[in-house]
């Protein structure tokens, strides 16, 4: 049961990675691409981690998976803010329709 649930979570995570790539390629400017990328950082990796945690039966391992996810979220959030600020400071204007 948990095997199937884990596999479903992992597949969902992979799909969000795909959406991150699509956004990175199709969105018009840095700021919108950041938005797409943060989905891959948080949701996609989170789903993959959750799926693997369901497959694992070792508490330490599940803790490490959680730690990996939290670390990537924190780094991703900080990096997004850093890049967005730097891009604004360099005179890149947010895209408008």
């Amino acid at each position, binding site marked *: 049961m948990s*095997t199937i649930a884990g*596999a479903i979570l*992992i*597949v969902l*995570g*992979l799909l969000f*990675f*795909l959406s*991150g*790539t699509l956004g*990175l*390629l199709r969105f018009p400017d*840095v700021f919108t*691409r*950041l938005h797409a*990328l943060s989905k*891959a*950082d948080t949701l*996609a*990796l989170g789903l*993959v*981690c959750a799926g*693997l945690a369901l*497959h694992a039966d070792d508490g330490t*391992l599940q803790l*490490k*998976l959680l*730690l*990996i996810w939290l*670390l*990537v979220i*924190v*780094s*991703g959030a*900080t*990096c997004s803010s*850093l*890049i967005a*600020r*730097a*891009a604004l400071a*360099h005179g*890149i204007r947010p895209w408008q329709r």
Partner: protein
Amino acid sequence: MTVFYFAGALFLLANVVVALARVLRGPTAADRMLSGELMGTTAVAVLLLLYGATGIEAIIDVALVFAILAAMAVVTFVRRTWPEDPAVDNEREQT
């Protein structure tokens, strides 16, 4: 189950190879850096799936190191490369 994990890892790798187009196209340095960040996150996920496939526990440690150092490149880029580097700014017209 092993096959499932490998297929997932293969999918992720193909996905990130497609995203490499952003490194080629740019247009700004920040866009290229974003692509690098996606590569970092994908590498973590690929390592996790490889762990699922092989069961070598040290792979999780490698993924953990990746996760801890995920911010390193972007922080260096924002603090050291981009601010005063005309080389990086000029490229917008070049490519």
